[in-house]
């Protein structure tokens, strides 16, 4: 991958000269594995319960010491591993073995399966998303772009803003309230990780038919979840969408956008630079949240085995997130952070590998130092856990105490769990290879991998694409052929029907559950077409944002549908008086393995990239959500596009609707465009 070589261009030569004791190349970890202990006679069959007493002493899953170690993996190359159940293909599993020169341990297998998933690796979308960078107009405002946690745009000499939209569709169908709530929590941490104070949220939503019984379960839960989380964080909700269409019946879309503000010099990055620096886990304790995906690896960690539920549901704690925000901002302002990364869907696995890969360094992690909610958790569970409200910090050792003090002031747990290790000197002593990620669990080495292999070297697919067979028919069924109301009475009835339709009627029931006033800088919010936030109280500098998408239109014409979404958001921002400067997008589609869906996706991306080039504004970040379907039926392709614009003085904003004039002059009404 291209990005890889760039990241590796910056080793830490000075520190590489002083490999520490924990450098994996010189000292492969203390005590390592119980050598000499025979490999279990029978290879463990994951998924099959092995009754077991005390996890840490007796062989669990048949592994000595309770865990599958690197040396054990080397000694038992023939063990069968449930890679297929974890979503890895045969060739992907072979790649992993090739990279490691042995079979992966349980923990490593869990990590690769997560990082090489569609969700984390963008393996089906990568080849298309490149266009966003390739076609992007040059922008000297962009301080961080695609590849970072969120794009950052400079809006004045001192200030920058960051914004991004992300999906939490599937969790929100399973448990609407918590799914939607943790969706907000996740995007807020992305914004926080850039060094910004989150200052507003928006929520583009799609539900099934308004009168379907399941909508009565999903919609109130989603809205309450977004409300509870956003309100509790003190983030004004300044806009979003509520769209009903039966194609979303079994797969609602819950997208969340967050806006943040930072002084330019407070910009953070995720690189775990500087060997010897300390890796700190900040925030909530780690529990068995969202480890459903890797549960196939752990059949014997519960005493009574098999039937124990593995919740794939994460429960959010907005209070902890609020404290996390305040603690992080204080840490940034005190200059105590070298690198920072939020823990999102892929938990520690993603944060450890991404921060190390971004710096080309290695990392040494003592997993038993991770504070746990449940003591019986296994290493692969700790690595895969999606527990919310956590951040990973890289701090220099002499500042560790100050960091812990600020964490304590805000009541946020913080633990040093590891340290950054140098890049590996090459054999000839000149160039350096990236370091390795070495994770131990109570003295056993459970992970020893090149971090970049999880982050950047994942599979990339150019999946087959084919225009859906029914598209011609759909396109032939033109609006012009529909009967038009011919009489006044018919016109009246059409109008009434339209006004009464769920997609057009008042959304106050939803929006009044959101706090729009908190922070005192909301200049425009619902029902305006764009939200406006004042950023600088002195100068009146502010930003306008709108998020829009039209699945029906995109179904008929994905290329122009994406452009339409962009144009709508762009217009909505422009008419407030703001100058549009940046784009974020959430691409909600069906299964990429369906050539018809893949075609829709490719067309939509091409349309969005072309549209951005024509309008002269860059995509700064976003998110892809695939597999939005029920059985074989995909949702309408639904690219949701957010546009951000800048106002030099928010007092000059133009609100929607006609202004009440005080004098006796009448306003003139003009229609612009064709």
């Amino acid at each position: 991958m291209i990005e890889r070589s760039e990241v590796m261009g910056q080793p830490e030569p000075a520190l590489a000269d002083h490999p520490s004791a924990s450098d994996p190349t010189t000292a492969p970890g203390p005590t390592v594995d119980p050598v000499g202990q025979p490999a279990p006679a029978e290879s463990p069959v994951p998924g099959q319960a092995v009754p077991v007493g005390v996890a840490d002493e007796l062989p669990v899953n048949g592994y000595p010491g309770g865990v599958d170690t690197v040396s054990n993996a080397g000694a038992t190359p023939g063990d069968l591993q449930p890679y297929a159940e974890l979503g890895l293909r045969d060739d992907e599993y072979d790649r992993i073995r090739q990279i490691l020169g042995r079979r992966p341990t349980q923990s490593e297998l869990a990590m690769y399966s997560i990082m090489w998933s569609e969700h984390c690796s963008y393996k089906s979308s990568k080849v298309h998303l490149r266009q966003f960078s390739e076609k992007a107009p040059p922008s000297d405002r962009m301080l961080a772009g695609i590849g970072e946690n969120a794009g950052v745009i400079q809006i004045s000499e001192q200030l920058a803003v960051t914004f991004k939209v992300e999906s939490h569709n599937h969790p929100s169908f399973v448990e609407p309230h918590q799914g939607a709530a943790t969706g907000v929590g996740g995007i807020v941490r992305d914004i926080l990780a850039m060094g910004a104070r989150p200052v507003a949220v928006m929520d583009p939503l799609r539900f099934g038919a308004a009168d379907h019984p399941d909508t009565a379960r999903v919609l109130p839960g989603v809205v309450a979840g977004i409300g509870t989380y956003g309100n509790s964080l003190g983030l004004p909700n300044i806009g979003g969408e509520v769209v009903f269409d039966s194609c979303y019946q079994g797969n609602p879309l819950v997208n969340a956008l967050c806006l943040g503000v930072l002084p330019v010099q407070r910009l953070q990055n995720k690189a775990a630079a500087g060997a010897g620096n300390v890796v700190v886990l900040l925030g909530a304790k780690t529990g068995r949240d969202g480890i459903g995906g890797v549960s196939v690896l752990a059949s014997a960690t519960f005493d009574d085995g098999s039937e124990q539920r593995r919740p794939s549901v994460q429960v959010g704690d907005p209070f902890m997130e609020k404290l996390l925000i305040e603690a992080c901002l204080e840490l940034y302002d005190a200059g105590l952070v070298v690198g920072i990364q939020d823990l999102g869907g892929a938990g520690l696995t993603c944060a450890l590998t991404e921060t190390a890969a971004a710096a080309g360094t290695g990392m040494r992690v003592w997993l038993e130092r991770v504070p746990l909610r449940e003591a019986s958790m296994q290493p692969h569970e700790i690595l895969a856990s999606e527990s919310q409200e956590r951040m990973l910090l890289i701090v220099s050792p002499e500042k560790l105490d100050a960091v812990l003090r600020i964490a304590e002031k805000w009541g946020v747990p913080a633990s040093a769990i590891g340290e950054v290790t140098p890049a590996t000197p090459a054999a000839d002593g000149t160039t350096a290879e990236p370091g390795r990620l070495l994770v131990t669990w109570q003295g056993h080495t459970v992970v020893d991998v090149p971090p970049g292999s999880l982050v950047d070297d994942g599979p990339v697919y150019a999946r087959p694409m084919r225009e859906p067979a029914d598209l011609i028919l759909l396109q032939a069924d033109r609006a012009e052929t529909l009967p038009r109301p011919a009489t006044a009475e018919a016109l009246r009835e059409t109008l009434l029907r339209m006004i009464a339709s769920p997609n057009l009627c008042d959304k106050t029931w939803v929006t009044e559950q959101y706090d729009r006033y908190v922070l005192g800088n909301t200049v425009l919010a619902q029902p305006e077409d764009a939200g406006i936030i004042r950023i600088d109280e002195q100068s009146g500098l502010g930003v306008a944002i709108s998020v829009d998408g039209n699945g029906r239109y995109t179904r008929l014409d994905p290329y122009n549908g994406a452009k339409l979404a962009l144009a709508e958001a762009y217009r909505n921002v422009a008419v407030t008086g703001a100058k549009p400067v940046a784009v974020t997008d959430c691409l909600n589609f069906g299964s990429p393995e369906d050539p018809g869906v893949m075609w829709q996706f490719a067309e939509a991306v091409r349309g969005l990239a072309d549209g951005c080039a024509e309008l002269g504004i860059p995509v700064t970040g976003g998110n892809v959500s695939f597999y939005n379907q029920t059985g074989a039926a995909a949702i309408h392709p639904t690219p949701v596009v957010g546009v951000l614009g800048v106002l030099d003085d928010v007092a000059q904003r133009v609100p929607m609707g006609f202004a009440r004039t005080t004098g006796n002059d009448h306003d003139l009404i003009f229609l612009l465009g064709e």
Partner: protein
Amino acid sequence: MPRVVVDVMLKPEILDPQGQAVANALPRLGVTDVSSVRIGRRIEIEFTGQPDLDRAREIADKLLANPVIEDFSIRVTEAGDAEESHP
């Protein structure tokens, strides 16, 4: 009158921010010997006739508990039963 009581608690592995907040507040009150607090819901159902456990179980399952994150238990009590009541 006898009634049915349904206790709904978060599954043990699910985060309980409420309980945690209370546990963290206890030292303020000078209480230091509490190791964990979990907070759930207690629902009292009164029937027009005889308390109907099966009916109550059905209600709990469909309406009172969220099976994705919660467990429930169910029993019949007399008002003023064995529980020690606050004066």
